[in-house]
């Protein structure tokens, strides 16, 4: 008896579901639960992490991210406008900057700001300034590209229509082009903030005091406690998710909101 194509696809799907369930069951049966909990989800060690993991580490991660994003967005807007400028040297400068900071590992930039520049120029920054410069200048390169793409994704006819109505270049950009570009860049821009949140873990390279620890450093320091296992890092990891998952949801909310507005 021949089986129809649709039936075949149905069976194939059931087989895939079944395989996944079997795999999950095997993992549950095979896992050494007491050791696993002892090493990774140890309740005593989890309790030891609080409240500092929130009041110090999470707080610092958020502060570093916000500092970096503030500089990154400001510099990114400037670089994006330079990149689409009709003045060629602006475009060259912007391209040079973006290629440089996008091409170098963030780790190298942090080392440069932490040790290279202070040594070479005999200057000493406040540690928050160093964090802001290092995180901000790296993210500015990515943010600039996101913004440039957004600005250029707005059809040329929009600019022409605005100018035809007597708007100046600046007025057309502010009233017509940038609001449309903003909608386009919101999802990729949220991505940048999430990347920035994780990049802030590199701050440890600058040699922080205990009160300046952010999540990743805090988690690693916690590993040295007796019987700690991996639990401190797992707690720190969950704290990152506390920041990044709502950011993703927020981006989706904005995306849906703008869509809903135009379909009302």
């Amino acid at each position, binding site marked *: 008896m021949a089986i129809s194509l649709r039936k075949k696809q149905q069976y194939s799907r059931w087989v895939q579901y079944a395989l996944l369930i079997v795999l999950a069951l095997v993992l549950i049966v095979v896992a050494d639960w007491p050791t696993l909990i002892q090493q990774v989800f140890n309740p005593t060690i989890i309790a030891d992490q609080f409240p500092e993991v929130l009041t110090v580490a999470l707080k610092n991660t958020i502060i570093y991210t916000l500092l970096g994003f503030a500089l990154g967005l400001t510099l990114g807007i400037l670089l994006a406008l330079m990149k689409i400028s009709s003045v060629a040297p602006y475009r060259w400068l912007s391209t040079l900057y973006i290629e440089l900071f996008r091409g170098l590992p963030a780790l190298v930039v942090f080392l440069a700001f932490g040790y290279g520049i202070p040594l070479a120029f005999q200057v000493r920054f406040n540690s928050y300034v160093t964090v802001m410069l290092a995180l901000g200048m790296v993210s500015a390169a990515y943010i600039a590209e996101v913004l440039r793409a957004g600005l250029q994704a707005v*059809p040329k006819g929009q600019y022409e*229509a605005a100018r035809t*109505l007597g708007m100046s270049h600046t007025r057309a950009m502010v009233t*017509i082009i940038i609001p449309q570009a903003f909608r386009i860049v919101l999802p990729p821009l949220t991505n940048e903030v999430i990347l920035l949140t994780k990049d802030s873990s590199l701050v440890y390279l600058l040699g922080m005091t205990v009160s300046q620890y952010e999540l990743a450093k805090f988690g690693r320091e916690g590993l040295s406690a007796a019987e700690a296992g991996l639990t401190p890092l797992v707690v720190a990891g969950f704290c990152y998710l506390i920041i990044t998952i709502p950011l993703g949801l927020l981006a989706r909310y904005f995306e849906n909101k703008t869509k809903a507005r135009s379909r009302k």
Partner: protein
Amino acid sequence: MSVAAESTAPAHASVTITNLHKSYGSVEVLKGINMTVEPGQVVCLIGPSGSGKSTLLRCVNMLETPNQGHIQVANHEVTDPDVDINALRQTIGMVFQQFNLFPHLSVLENCTVAQIKVLKRDKAQARDVALKNLAKVGLADKADRFPDQLSGGQQQRVAIARALSMDPQLMLFDEPTSALDPETVGDVLAIMRELADEGMTMLVVTHEMAFARDVADRVVFMDGGVVVEEGTSDQVIGNPQQPRTQDFLSRVLNPTGVGLEES
């Protein structure tokens, strides 16, 4: 020079184009165009694609900068390097092939944004003007919609209302029906016809030969960056003298190459 201040005085502008040249790199698109549009006249620019008619239209409000020659609109030199082009553009309405409505603004806001930001009208006045013009194009009931909720023909009518809300002295139309579904073309052409009857000065690039024949005071046939033939619509469309005009018209009016000649 205060163009804006005069925008209430003479209702309709004239256009004078003298020896206009425009090149893109080594390609010369306009090779010395001379043309006059009297106040209240409707002039249709026809010709094959690539003939330079859209470029000519876009030179009139300086969306394209000509390399040589002069354009005057209502005695203001558009091509003067010192001209306040933003002020001059307030008096020149333009309608595009692709509508170019602002998708992030409602239909009403599309018609008020430039009135408020450029002409500095207060919101209530801008709203009144916008609603009056939306009523004129038959879309007052769509004022709170967004552009992507409208059909192509409706969007183009909003674009006309948006341009009219600036109280222009001259309207430029760049193939306004070329992107429309056939059944919505008539609505747009009807509004343009109404504008023409009201005495608006209009410069229209179009492939709608029936519209050119019925509405245009003068028809200009362009090919290869020059004006090949111009005159009344009866002369140019009804009885063309130049072989290139005859060839173009026979292709446009009878694209399948069969059937009767245009009488």
